[in-house]
């Protein structure tokens, strides 16, 4: 059961401002989905290695050779609030 408090905690971690209605709905939906997911608990997985990758590759490395960076005008073109050649944001210290 994912209660309202947990939903709010996770929403804050994920930086989502949910409406009250969304919080309510999310609590129910996540609970249903996780109930299904928890069917994995039936399996005996002791000693089974986790798979994070299906490709059997190692040491894929890039040579340390510079490639041209991007012109600053282009970098800032899609920025919602460009200022002084940089990206302006509300101060994290505010």
């Amino acid at each position: 059961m994912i209660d309202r408090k947990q939903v709010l905690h996770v929403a804050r971690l994920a930086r989502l401002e949910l409406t009250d209605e969304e919080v309510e709905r999310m609590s129910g939906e996540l609970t249903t989905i996780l109930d299904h997911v928890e069917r994995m608990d039936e399996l005996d997985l002791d000693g089974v290695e986790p798979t994070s990758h299906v490709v059997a590759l190692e040491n894929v490395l890039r040579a340390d050779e510079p490639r041209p960076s991007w012109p600053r005008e282009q970098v800032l073109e899609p920025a919602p609030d460009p200022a002084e050649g940089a990206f302006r944001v509300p101060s994290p210290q505010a």
Partner: protein
Amino acid sequence: MPDGYESVIGLEIHVQLSTRTKMFCGCELSFGEEPNTHTCPVCLAHPGVLPTINEQAVRYGLQIALALGCEPAARSIFHRKNYFYPDLPKGYQISQYDIPLASGGRLGEVRIHRVHLEEDAAKLIHLGESGRIHGSAASLVDFNRGGTPLVEIVTEPDLRGPAEAREWAQLLRTTIKQLAVSDVNMEEGSLRCDANVSLRRAGAAELGTKTELKNMNSFRFLERGIAAELERQGALLTAGGQVEQETFHFDPRTGALTPLRSKEYAHDYRYFPEPDLVPLAPTQEMLSAAREALPELPAERRDRYEAELGLPEVTARQLAFDAELGAYFERALDASRRGAAAKGSAGDGAEPKVIANWVTGELVGRLREAGDGEVDPASSKVSPEALAALAGMVESKQVTTGAARQVLATLVAEGGDPAEIVEREGLTQMSDAGELEAIAERAIEAEPGAAEKVRAGNPKAIGPIVGAVMRETKGRADGGEVTRLIMEKLGLS
């Protein structure tokens, strides 16, 4: 620190690697360029981009790991460390977590817990009041630094005091400097040192609650920050209080530690394996290449200075554990040998011990007077060749020690060739015995009281007479020779 307690200090060091490109993209590293001129879709985390691992960063990481005596992991992987911050474009930092590049080493008396690779964050410039948007303060993000390759080194909590921590951090810096894989400059941020500090009852096995200190951007501040925090914790414990787990920010201007705003929401980094990258499994070739690239490390250098150059332990250590001093000494030594060889003289030039003393004693002393704190003789006007030549002139009695000090003062002030300075200022050691004898006689006549005392059995009273000779000869006479001559004239030898 309250009685019965001991301090327990561990360090977390971030080293910016001096590769050409960033950790995960081909952008060149930047050094104070205009903001956002060293970026690309990858390091700006545009949709759809993927990271690729910089081969050189891996090589440098392995060199650091081996230099610190760590065991490289047979297979290490990258993780995503998730948190939101404007200097972190992807919303996660690619770092290493449960299987770091290497672990379990030692440098000096301190055990190394782990060494791992990661990427640096971008730079946030706080605009404060001037840059208010919507009535609140704003910041600017410059992504030039974002993605710079970092090696993070975590020690075990083996340090026991602020001075020890500083000294060890300097040794670490020298070690990495020697590897030539980083500028390791604390002021510029290519070496960053955080400290975990706690107090525990002496002899207790378990650790006390620790606090984390950040942003101490010089060795002095590192020492000062740790000392201040130990004092704070000590006072707290003495008063019957408890240390809270907290993070402090050191303000270099005030020397104050300010707690970072208590986190409304505790960090939950939600680490998980980075699916965009494949594991690092250093091959035998990679490992031997890294091993072969290792230069002489500080401890080895100290041992060599003692065993082969006959330097006293203190001097050997001072030179070997200070990257700049050691490098300068090596160059001076080299110049001295080359100079001697060029002249076809049988010896090796000035004795290494003499050069070492001139470097660690006179030169460092003068530079310290002239500047403040950390001394890099390489950036002074005294070239290692000049210092070697000067030491050689002292040793071959071309100049007296006193005259050499005057020459050094001139070198520090304006640089130049010591032989020319000696010539110009007429500081060549007096070799005309007759002339010196006459001066000694005049000095005895001028100081009858002192002469009387010396004759009466007080040899220390000779000072004013020697002084008079030295004044007269402007330091060109050898002090020992002058003393011997005066005693002879007084009929005491």
